[in-house]
């Protein structure tokens, strides 16, 4: 109930916002895409990064990368952390500037968890691309943190 309302609130299509029950191998009480994304982001919080409360969740399929728009401030440092559940095996996060050019930065990659870190060189619009590099359609969640 809350999930569907949240989907409406966040402006997602029902398909994107679909939340499938976690497979048996992924105990729902222990692992959700959001809990894993937050776990990853939490590591950066130790470095003074503040985690945004908002998140982007949905389903991702192979060869169908998803893009979200964020608006960043020059000089701020950002980490975009994403995680997916099985059957996703490897996801990746990339950052692009407002003209669609890749932004150099740092990347953390471990199977279905991935993060990209950048320093915004200009204020304005950026695009975060989430790709499923290996595995099958799966639920994901992306959060970001800044300092």
């Amino acid at each position, binding site marked *: 109930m809350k999930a569907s*309302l949240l989907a409406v609130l966040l402006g997602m299509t029902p398909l994107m916002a679909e939340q499938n029950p976690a497979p048996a191998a992924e105990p729902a009480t222990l692992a959700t895409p959001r809990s894993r994304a937050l776990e990853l982001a939490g590591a950066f919080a130790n470095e003074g990064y503040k985690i945004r409360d908002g998140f982007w969740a949905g389903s991702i399929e192979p060869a169908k990368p998803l893009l979200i728009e964020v608006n960043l401030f020059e000089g701020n440092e950002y980490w975009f952390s994403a995680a997916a559940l099985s059957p996703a095996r490897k996801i990746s996060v990339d950052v692009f500037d407002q003209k*669609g050019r890749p932004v150099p930065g*740092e990347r953390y990659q471990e199977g279905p968890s991935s993060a990209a*870190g950048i320093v915004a060189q200009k*204020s304005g619009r950026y695009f975060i691309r989430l790709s499923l590099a290996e595995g099958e359609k799966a639920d994901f969640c992306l959060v970001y943190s800044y300092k």
Partner: protein
Amino acid sequence: MFTRCAILAAGLASVAPLGFGAAEPLSKAQIQSVVRIEALTIPTPGEFFAAIDKQGQPNWTQLFQPKSAGVTSSRAQMALMLGVLVADGYIAVEAQDGQGVKNTGKDIINLGTKLNVSKTILGRGNSINDFAENNDWSALREELEATQNEVKLAMAEQKDQNLVILVTVGAWVRGTDVAALYISKNYTPGLASLLRQPAIIEYLLSQLGLLPGSLRLDPLVQKLEQDLASALKLVDTDPDKPFPAESVKALSETMSGLVNAIAEGAKNP
């Protein structure tokens, strides 16, 4: 500065950090498929203020001049004011003014009561008090955003979906008001460039454009649309050229006028 050490120090040493940037540029078609989600696409006032802190030394105590809502029965005005109060909360956090944070939290709860969302956020109000008591400024930033998101969720649950965007607009307008005021008095091209966020204003205008006719006839909403369109003209300029001091001043005046209109209510023309 942002370094690889951050990753290692963050306890993720099991996987080496990789440089990236070799990806192909996005095509226009790909960019057109982009998703916008209010909860992530619109930055918090805290992010704005963090960027200002990197380039300037604002006296946040001086900048913390909290607004109080005038008496109104307009739910649109109350929703906008709620956003303003959330932004005021962030300013109080920057000023490390515990009592100011508590007072702002109380005002948010009071306004939430009038909007029938207080049950949801009462717990948050208690947390805000506790964190303010313990000077936990970092937790307060997260709590303020969480409070705002819970208010929006409660609004959506009680079929007040149209008010959600107004909370966002109120917070953005107030954050920009305070930032532009500081930058207009302490102008540097670097600081001024932080104000150049045309995509945010475009998004807010697009969402205001989706409001039902009755709300769009509200004089305050009409003023918002008009003034945000003026603000967009000011900030939608060549990002490779400095954002001039005159434009910062004009933006500051526009935002200040809007915040006053939200607090006092716009008059029918």
